């Protein structure tokens, strides 16, 4: 008992010394909040990859009223991969994510400057069909938000509202009943979201009766049902317990074989586990470093990124 205590104390003192050393070492350009005069080099953010980018963002500025939330962010996102966005609270990573499918349009005070292109097509221009855009770029939110409807209706919601699937009395009378297609779609999407085994016997039950992790996977299935190219996820596992989180992480890795996944996370281990490339945002809405995940985590170029990843602030 006393021995273990001693060991712990030693460990703690060891860490204190480390911290002190780090503070001295990094005192040149860093305060405790992570703000600094450190200059961001362009090559820290230039991530070279093979093939065409799925999404490319150039000089993106976002303002909420007077406050600037994102400062001139440029980055290119490769297809069929997982891109993680990490950074401390309030660094603009969620804002950035919401720019990619123009969900920021729903916030009245938000103003967006710059360019976002999906396969070379500009998203921020007049005449962009938001319906079509959001069908191609789906989104999963932080807290699971299924509709208060049956599981089946939740999954088939998008296609039904887009008119791709019509069921019910009127289509039946007109002889255009898509019940079969709907059943196939529901099964396919739930299988893709690794939820089919758990809910196949109760598709008519209300989705609010599922557990948190199941609800989040249902939300992913609902998103898959409109057949997007890109799936944006805003801290999809932050409200879930470790087991549900592990399931979501496995699912994200599987989805990356077919879809381009961009995921915002608070959890750096999670980012390291699931992502192919990682972008680090720091306070002030700046993209500081963007590169292959292993490289960013093992040998970051920026001192601030290293401090953040090693847990010295944030």
């Amino acid at each position, binding site marked *: 008992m006393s021995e273990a205590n001693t060991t712990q104390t030693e460990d703690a003192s060891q860490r204190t010394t480390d911290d002190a050393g780090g503070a001295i070492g990094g005192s040149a350009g860093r305060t405790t909040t992570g703000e600094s005069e450190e200059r961001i080099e362009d090559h820290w953010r230039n991530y070279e990859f093979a093939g065409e980018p799925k999404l490319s963002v150039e000089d993106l500025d976002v303002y909420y009223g007077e406050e600037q939330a994102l400062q001139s962010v440029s980055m290119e996102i490769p297809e069929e991969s997982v891109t993680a966005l990490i950074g401390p609270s309030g660094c603009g990573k969620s804002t950035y994510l919401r720019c990619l499918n123009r969900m920021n349009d729903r916030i009245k005070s938000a103003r967006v400057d710059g360019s976002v292109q999906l396969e070379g097509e500009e998203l921020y221009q007049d005449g962009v069909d938001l319906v079509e855009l959001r069908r191609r770029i*789906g989104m999963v939110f932080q807290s699971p*938000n299924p*509709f208060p409807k049956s599981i089946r209706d939740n999954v088939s919601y998008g296609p039904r509202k887009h008119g791709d699937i019509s069921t019910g009395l009127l289509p039946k009378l007109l002889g255009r009943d898509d019940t079969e297609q709907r059943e196939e779609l529901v099964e396919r999407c739930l299988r893709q979201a690794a939820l089919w085994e758990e809910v196949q016997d109760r598709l008519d039950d209300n989705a609010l009766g599922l557990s948190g992790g199941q609800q989040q996977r249902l939300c992913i299935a609902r998103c898959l049902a409109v057949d997007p190219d890109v799936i944006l996820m805003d801290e999809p596992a932050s409200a879930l317990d470790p087991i549900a989180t592990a399931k979501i992480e496995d699912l994200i890795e599987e989805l990356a074989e077919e879809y381009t996944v961009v995921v915002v996370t608070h959890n750096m281990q999670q980012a390291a586990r699931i992502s192919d490339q990682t972008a680090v945002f720091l306070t002030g809405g700046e993209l500081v470093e963007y590169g292959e995940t292993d490289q960013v985590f093992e040998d970051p170029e920026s001192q601030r990124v290293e401090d953040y990843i090693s847990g010295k602030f944030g």
Partner: protein
Amino acid sequence: MSTIDDTGVVAGVARLRNATTLPTMALSLLTVLMGWLVLFQQVGETNEYLGLPIVELFAISVLVQGLAIGGLGVASYVGALQSTSDRTAGLFTGAFVGSLWAVVTAVLVTVVAGLRMVYWPGSSVWIFSGIPVPLGILLSLLGGVVGFLAVVLPREDLGATLPVSALLVPLGMFALVGPLTVPWTYEPGWTTVVFPGSEVLPFAFFVTSLLGCWTLAKISEGFGATGRQRGAYYLIGVSVAATLGVLGMLVYFIVDKGFATLSTGASFDGWGGRLVLPVVDWAVPWFDANLPFVFNQPGGLFVDVPGVWPAILGTIWLVIGALVVAVPLGIGAAIFLTEYVERGRITQLVEVVTNGLWSTPSIVFGLFGMAFLMPRLSNGGRSMIVAQLVLGFMLLPLVLITSREAIISVPDEYRDASAALGVSRWKTVRSVVLPAAMPGVITGVILGVGRIAGETAPLLLVFGGQPYPSTKSPVSGGKGILESFSFSLQPPFITNSALTERGTALPFQLYTSITAGSSPKPEVFSLSEFGWGTALVLLLVVMGFFAIGVASRLYFRRKLNYE
């Protein structure tokens, strides 16, 4: 604490406390209930139970409560009763008991000393900087302050008990040995009002027993925070019971008075009658039953039992028409205000205006219908359609307010989720927001229907026809509303002659029969019999609407919530 509780002595004391308080509380609750019933003349004040007049039983009950409360309070103070008493009984208890002391003092000084409670030349006054203050008021206030201080100043186990006991014990004694008996009347002297003992005494027993029950509940948990919690629980419980009691008494009163009328000539001979379905004219098997007061018209040569069928139909048609006007408009406006307009000046203005409209007196709506709608829609005459519109306008603000609240309370996550799937705003509203808001919307509609179904004032101005029609139709032309639609090639293309005629409805019929002063067939029903019967039917019709509303709300709620 827990170790002390486990010792035999303290457990014995707690048992003693419960053994005293619980039966006494039951006694005080019974007194509250019986006092209530006597006050509303459901039990005679001279009845005898157990060989004693009920007033003497009340007196004994109050005396027992007062002695128990005082005794337990003192026992707790001297340490014979385990309790966790606070330092004071609190301001609320003080104000409550103090105001009772003020009332009792006022009664005493007016009866004993003949003082006045209002200023009158020649009465005893105290001049306070030139203003004459009647001595009665002054003494009464003094009594209140003394009572308040007696509650607030001592430790809780004395302050919460002795001032209460000082009210209960004298009341019980004077009621037992006189002079507070049923023939006694309270004549204050300075006013001509006379309060008979048969009203004053049950009221006094009711209030004091309520106080006694509250105090005993506090004692039973040994004062302190837990005691107050228990006391509040009983006080709230009794208030809820009293509310339900008023409602129950009202319903009972109407049913009691109206049932004989409703069942006059009624018969039920089981299965074997036939019912001819409207429109298709098929006869289907039906009950062989008869309920003439409901299904007959009030007037006519061949009607042996006059009934209220036209008025029932009239009320139903009015409600349907008002719903058709108000529900789509109200929900539509609520959707517009919450989903399409930024919250700001305009929505605030609309909110204020709708709240104002909802509290506008109904006769004003009636006047509007009379001055604006009648000349335009029915050639200046009263009519069904104008009444439907006026009631619809009255219903509109409530539907708007409640729908808006219900839509605002739908979580934004649903809207975000739907938008992220690329679903347009209107489709989102229709398939996610509205279903989620539906139970709230329906609650508002139910409340509104309850109001407009019983509305009389505007109907007097825009609807009322002859009080006792001799046809089964609610409108005076005698034609059914559904059959009266006719189509033409000239504008306005659809006309309905029945809708532009005056008619009758239940509350209107009730009012006209009272003002007319005669029943349609005095040899069958007296005026009041006919009136109570109509009131009962009105109650049943409104309850029918409620039942439909509650059922649909349940349906939507069940659809939303998982079970």
